[in-house]
């Protein structure tokens, strides 16, 4: 028993050894973004005092701050800051197709997704939200949750885990649960729609960020080329890549637009990120969109 515990701990430490650079990277991105966002400075349910305001008809009697009111002639209502801590489930695609980079200058899609996910988690933790990975675990808050999540992220890099699917695994989430999904979403649109609609049927809101390599958009290859998928999809021989490039552009655009439309239809947010672009801007967009979702 002790030996097994030791083994587990050893594995954890191994994983943690890889963690710091990832965390540092993610934290740096998160910090950049956090400076540009100014919390949810508005009235809402919460513990922290926000402001006093003159009583208006319709306010409940319980909300009147009698002490403040006694100081003056008017009645004052004590308002607290909006502090509805929400649970956010995070997921990123860890399938084989994500381990791809067309150029050594760009990171792999998987790496970029991990960083974006961690940075997002970091931002959410700063905002006091409860976070967890979409793996059936319970959301938690605080730095511990963040580190826990990072550990799972790196430890679960192996295949055959529930996370190693190219689509988010379906599981029952509380109504109004928040979902953040990172992935290339290159699966057939029908599969994606079926999966998304199941989540949406639960009343879950989601932010979908499609992470693509530039080569997947432009198809920059030339000549006679045999393409091979990264997830054993099979092979295809293209006699002259130049001649099919236009058609491919049409297809990939259709796919992206289809995904965007799907998200719009089910009331989700959608973002597109290419690995040759900066992760900060992507994160900012995502965070803003997520904030809007959370505020609703």
């Amino acid at each position, binding site marked *: 028993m002790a030996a097994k515990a030791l083994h587990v701990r050893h594995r954890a430490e191994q994983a943690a050894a890889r963690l710091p650079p990832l965390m540092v990277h993610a934290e740096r991105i998160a910090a950049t973004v956090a400076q540009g966002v100014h919390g949810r400075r508005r009235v809402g349910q919460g513990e922290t005092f926000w402001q006093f305001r003159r009583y208006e008809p319709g306010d409940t009697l319980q909300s009147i701050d009698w002490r403040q009111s006694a100081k003056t002639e008017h009645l004052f209502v004590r308002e607290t800051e909006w502090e509805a801590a929400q649970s956010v489930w995070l997921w990123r695609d860890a399938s084989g197709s994500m381990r791809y980079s067309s150029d050594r200058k760009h990171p792999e899609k998987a790496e970029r997704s991990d960083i974006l996910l961690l940075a997002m988690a970091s931002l959410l933790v700063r905002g006091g939200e409860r976070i967890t990975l979409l793996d059936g675990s319970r959301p938690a808050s605080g730095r511990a949750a963040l580190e826990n999540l990072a550990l799972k992220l790196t430890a679960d890099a192996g295949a055959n885990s529930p996370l190693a699917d190219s689509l988010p695994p379906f599981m029952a989430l509380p109504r109004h649960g928040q979902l953040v999904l990172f992935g*290339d979403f290159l*699966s057939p649109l029908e599969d994606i729609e079926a999966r998304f609609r199941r989540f949406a049927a639960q009343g879950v809101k989601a932010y979908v960020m499609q992470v693509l390599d530039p080569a997947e958009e432009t198809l920059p290859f030339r000549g006679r080329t045999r393409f091979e998928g*990264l997830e054993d999809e099979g092979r295809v021989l293209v006699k002259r890549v130049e001649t*099919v490039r236009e058609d491919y552009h049409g297809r990939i655009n259709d796919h992206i637009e289809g995904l965007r439309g799907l998200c719009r239809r089910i009331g989700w947010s959608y973002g597109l990120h290419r690995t040759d672009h900066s992760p900060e801007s992507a994160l900012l967009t995502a965070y803003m969109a997520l904030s809007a979702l959370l505020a609703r």
Partner: protein
Amino acid sequence: MLSLGAFAFASPWILWGLLSLPVIWWLLRITPPAPKLVRFPAIRLLFRLPQKEDTPVHTPLWLLLLRLLTAALVIVALAHPLHNPTAGATRSGPILLVIDNGWAAAQNWQSRIGYLSDLLDRAERERRGVVVLATAPTVSGEAPAPTKLLRAAQARQIVRAIRPAPWKSEPKAAAAAIGTLTLKDASVVWLNEGLESADAKALGAALAKIGPVTLVTDQAGALPLVLRPPKPQGGNLVARIERVGSSGARLVRIRALDDKGAVLANVPAQIPDGKRFADAVIELPAELRNRVVRLDLAGQRTAAGVVLVDERWRRRPVGIVAQRTIASGQPLLSELYYLERALGPYTELRRGPTRELLDRPIAVMILPDGATISADDRLRLEKWVRAGGLLLRFAGANLAEGDDALVPVKLRRGDRSVGGAMTWAKPLGLADFAAGSPFSGLTVPTDVRVSRQVLAEPSADLAAKTWARLADGTPLVTAERRGKGWLALIHTSANPEWSNLALSGLFVEMLRRMVALSQGIAGADARINLPPRRTLDGFGRPVRPPATAIAIAAAAFAKTVPGPRHPPGLYGTETIRRSLNLSPSIARLRAFASVPQGATQSFYKDARQTDFKPWLLAAALLLLILDTIIGLLMRGLLPLPGRAAAAVGVVALAAAAALPLLVAAPNAIAQDGSLDDQFAIKATSKTRLAYIRTGNAETDQVSLAAMRGLGAILRRRTSVEPGDPMAIDAENDELALFPMLYWPIVPGQTPPSEQAAARLNRFMRSGGILLIDLRDPAGQGSFDTIALRRALGGVRIPALAPVPRGHVLTKSFYLLQQFPGRWAGGTVWVQSGNQKVNDGVSQVVVGSNDWAGAWAVDASLRPMFPVVPGGSLQREHAFRTGINIVMFALTGNYKADQVHLPTIMRRLGQ
């Protein structure tokens, strides 16, 4: 075989393959290249993508051309292209290969080997039989004979074994041998050695009968040169260099080598345009010339370009006994005149009294009749003859009248006159020389007449002693073996007084034979066999004689022509060396001109064929590799070159790191100095105080301590920094290495041996100073030089005197009036001033104050003995005395010069 000028294809039909190139072109056009393999995540989107362009994938034109070139190269290579193909042998039957391998073939043997290799390659390709015939006799002396019909591979074995012979080829025998040959449809290839002769012509005719002849010869300029044996001319050797033909000037270098192969002379000789030969004059001092064993021509690789030099070419010292003054008024009557004229060109002549001549090694001594010798000289001469000298005497009036025992045969008193006013008989000529005589082989001129001679008493052994006779049988030259040497007498005079022999060329030849005899060439014993010692191979290199070479009888040596039985080289025994050279047997050189009828002629020089097949195939392979690399590049499969560069870098670094290890090989030098050397190094690496070991242990110990104490004081106070003191054994050690020796005299001391005394005397004479300490307080001031001399044995003590006032010893460092030691008051003696040996520096200082006792200190530099009468001042003065003495020894009278300083200053002041 398809010929296109200098090019040819051995398998031309393969060239039809070039027609397939358009097909290859078409195939390459329609066959798309292998696709690149790309891993791509969005592959689903590529499925079922309509592929509009179905035309074959485009191969770049340059790549297409590259591949076509590769194919063309392979085809052309398989057609076996040759440059300079071996011509001739036009018929399809067997090839008769005639190889001249006489001496002349050696010069360009390498090109022959190349040609043969090409030809046999071709015979092998064309599966033709080969018959090989080498025209020189084999080493075992067999006449040239053709082989059986061989396959090319077998013929190659045989050809490989053929070597150029150091003797002449025998085309005549070869022609006879092929007369028996029957070959169908044969062609002949004749590798000619380039020399014309009737025999070669006959061989050519015989070959032409067998089939069409291809004659391969050297270019005229490449034919070998012949070096003729040198002739002495004055003090020089003159060697003639002959060539074939006479066109164009040619510069040749002739080298003279000694027995170790060192080049003693390297003389250029220019054969002018239009001349067949040139004479090279080799000027060498007699000593060097006598070391010459071999002359050869630089750049010549034949046996005829080498002349081995034996004793015949050496100048031997010949002494003529003569008084210093010559009657110069009538030189033509002087015997010396004729002897000098006859011997001068061949020998090194010396003239003088017997004694002087015998002081230096000398081979032949000539005693003319006019020379008078004392009885002493007579004994000396006799002794010298017995030791191996050759004494040659001439008859004359003195010998005829005198009673001289130093003659080989007993002589009758008086002389015999043949012809003259009072006789009927005419002056006699010479009989032919007998076979056993050293003169055998010389032709006797008919006009030589002897009119007077001395006669030998008839005796049993007279005939055996006679080397030459007159026509009537009376001995003219007699000789007798005495000990190891010879005593010879010519029974007539060395001037024309008694005969005109001295005027004839025969006189010169006879004298030369005599001189040659003195060196041990036993011409008299013609039965001696001269076995081969070192022979030349076909390239003129000295080699161990082949087993088939046999000895030559000395009598027949001069007539021997080099051949398989007697290859050119050095023959003889330990004492007798004769050289057998090839070049005298070679007649005048003429270029081969009698080309057989219908023969095609070619030359070796440009005949080497080049086979392009391997090169073309290699080029095709390279192109294939290039094509593969290009293909990999185009498909993006080539790993990045950075790694390869790094590997190269690592290798280079490793090599650079290993280099110093190789260079810094251990270089241990053994320090092998003898004991004497070590002693000398020890004595001279520092200035050392030394004392003479007396054998008395206590005294020696005190001396050592004293020298150490004095050394310490010297180091402290002066710039003299002596090393550790050394004990000297006067009997054995070298004394000259020390400036000063301290010599304590102990009671009862044995005087030094004669040898040691001689050493000490030499030491003093060469500037050393002997410090003698009598250590005797009792004898204060009371000893005399005689007594001291007795104690010192053979050591030569000069006259002594007490140290005078103002002596250098009193001021060489400190100003001193006394020289106390352990005792005070004893007189110190130095060489008395009037002796001007060693620049006035005293060779010896003698005292009795036991200085060593005062100087001696223990290990902690405390004095070992008290001084008497005592006081630190006395010890201080004792040390000052020591310092002064050392300074005196090191600087001599340097301080004495200052004696004159006041005077000099006074003069300058005025």
